[in-house]
């Protein structure tokens, strides 16, 4: 287990960029930089991270960064990696995309790269909506959440990207959370050391889009895990394993009530009002379903 003290002291993502105050994406980028000690190349599609970079001619990135079109991430990373290999440059190529750019418009390119088992690390930072364009629903937006395109709460359940990627039988799939940076760092390091397609899905509570004060980014992320709304796990060469805080939560009685998570966030406020009761029950049911699937996997493991 990596400790805080061991973390790279250098900042590879410089301060003074355009992220909102309390932004989970910039925290993720900081940690990514430290995990790989600045020795990697970023590929970034349209998302908050495009804007976070600020405006030409300056950038906060101390690693080479290729901005690319929204739907193109994984394919561009594949091409870039191919070129570097031909040039004998052995540096990890890390695709860094939002949830919309991953589970919606970038899914095809992601799936293609996964099927080809391209030697890249794909990280989806999941702030559960199109935040850059002002909080529209994405496939990853959870059931019940308000966004500007789901004014009464989303009616469909979230698309489960890590499962979808896992169905491609790639060498490494993991979930993580910005609230557990050391767990994330460790997963990044493990992934980067493997050959082939690696996928990490990073939960990233966004104060702007989820409507909570910027000081609570970590708190909200922690509650997502503690209430079981977000599950930390990894699938290494097909073997499923709960990790970190989630290890202890298979027993439902160990989980905090989901209301504790919801009540911090403006986007869920209607769920806690009487008219939201039914939706809240649905949501709880979905959490149970997810854990019961996890249970099957954990028990079915050799």
């Amino acid at each position, binding site marked *: 287990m990596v400790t805080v003290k061991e973390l790279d002291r250098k900042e590879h993502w410089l301060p003074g960029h355009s992220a909102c105050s309390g932004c989970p994406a910039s925290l993720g980028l900081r940690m990514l930089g430290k995990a790989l000690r600045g020795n990697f190349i970023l590929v970034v599609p349209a998302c908050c991270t495009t804007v976070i970079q600020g405006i030409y001619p300056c950038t906060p990135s101390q690693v080479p960064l290729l901005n690319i079109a929204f739907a193109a991430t994984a394919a561009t990373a594949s*091409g870039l*990696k*191919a070129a570097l290999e031909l040039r004998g440059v052995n540096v990890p190529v890390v695709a860094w995309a939002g949830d919309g750019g991953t589970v919606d418009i970038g899914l*095809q390119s992601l799936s293609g790269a996964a099927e*080809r088992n391209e030697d890249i690390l794909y990280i989806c930072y999941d702030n559960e909506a199109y935040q850059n364009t002002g909080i529209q629903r994405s496939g990853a937006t959870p059931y019940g959440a308000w966004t500007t395109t789901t004014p009464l709460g989303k009616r469909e359940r979230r698309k489960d990207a890590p499962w979808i990627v896992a169905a491609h039988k790639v060498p490494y799939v993991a979930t993580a959370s910005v609230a557990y940076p050391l767990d994330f760092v460790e997963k990044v390091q493990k992934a980067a050391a493997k050959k082939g397609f690696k996928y990490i899905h990073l939960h990233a509570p966004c104060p702007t889009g989820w409507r909570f004060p910027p000081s609570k980014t970590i708190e909200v992320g922690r509650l997502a895990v503690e209430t079981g709304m977000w599950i930390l796990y990894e699938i290494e060469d097909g073997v499923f394993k709960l990790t970190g805080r989630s290890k202890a939560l298979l027993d439902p009685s160990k989980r905090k009530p989901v209301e504790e998570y919801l009540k911090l966030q403006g986007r869920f406020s209607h769920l806690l009002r009487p008219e939201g009761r039914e939706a809240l029950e649905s949501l709880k049911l979905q959490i149970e379903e997810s854990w019961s699937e996890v249970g099957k996997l954990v028990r079915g493991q050799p």
Partner: protein
Amino acid sequence: MQKTVISGNEAVALGVKLAKVQVVAAYPITPQTIIVEKIAEYVESGELKARFINVESEHSAMAACIGAAAGGARVFTATSSQGLLYMSEMVFWAGGARLPVVMAVVNRAIAPPWSIWCDHNDALSQRDSGWVQLWVENVQEALDTVIQAYRIAEDERVMLPVMICLDGFLVSHSYEPIEVPSQQLVDSFLPEKTPAPYWIDVTNPRSYGTIASPETYMEFRYELQEAMEGAKRVVKEVDEDWGRLTGRSYGGLIDLYLCDDAEVVAVLIGSWAGDAKEAADIMRSRGVKAGVLRLRSTRPFPAEDLVEALKDVDAVAVVDRSLSPGLPSILLSEVKAALYEHGAKPYVKGFIAGLGGRDVTPQDFVNVFERTLKGFKKGETGKVEWVGLRGVGSGHR
């Protein structure tokens, strides 16, 4: 040089091999498919040391090419019609990013209705994308132009992606005897790709393509326009160089056939130039001085060369194999605009023909020449006429 009988598609693949392309990412589509298959074979057999990325769509094909080009590799892809439209966002991206990607577009009509046959609407639909667009007439030129394309794309004065347009089936599937340049010759003509000027370098980290505010964006576009001016020079130079080495050159930006003394000239792009040239011969045998001006390049649009070639011509027929619905016709506009400047404006008449693979014969071109001369003599307007239209007006509506 070795002689062989191969198809246009095979010639493109051979050109790719000779150019020592390093990364290929492509997706199949009729009538381009054989290019992709052939390259896959070269790569698998080790004849071409490259990575072949079997992408899941054309958008990803171009995305992968962009990634690879930004990473410093020499890259190639090919597509047609729907595939080109599907990757359009990335086509514009490659142009804006100034990456020397080379792509063959095997021209095919756009659906619906579905058609796999030749017209030029696909490539022309990308004429604003910042790509140099070169059009070939036959199989030999297809091969030669692939090799030329890399010299052009990678030239410091250009640094732009290059599209090679060849007519679907008419060139792509036609087998013709051609001369194959030796690898040595090609190597001497086309230097090995160096990672510069564009490459990702961990020791000198940069962010590519960040947001440009209204204060800076426009200048990047101006540079792009300047690069196109550069391309005008470079396309000619490269073609001349190639001519010196192989004895084959194609006129640079425009290919002139009997235009010197012509009274009537047909302006067009693509492989039917051959049929038009036959028609010009027929006209001349009848005492009419006809000529053919084939644009090899539509971007940069060779306005100066075109005006120079047409300045003493009485009548010009612009024959489009494409349609921009709501505009009389595409090349016609650009040719007229180029001539507008010029003092003695020739009579210009537009024709649309050959859409969706409709057959067009030398006789059709003879008619085009005659119709144009008649229009000129009678002082008619240059109203666009459609060649070989069937059953329209008579209850078709």
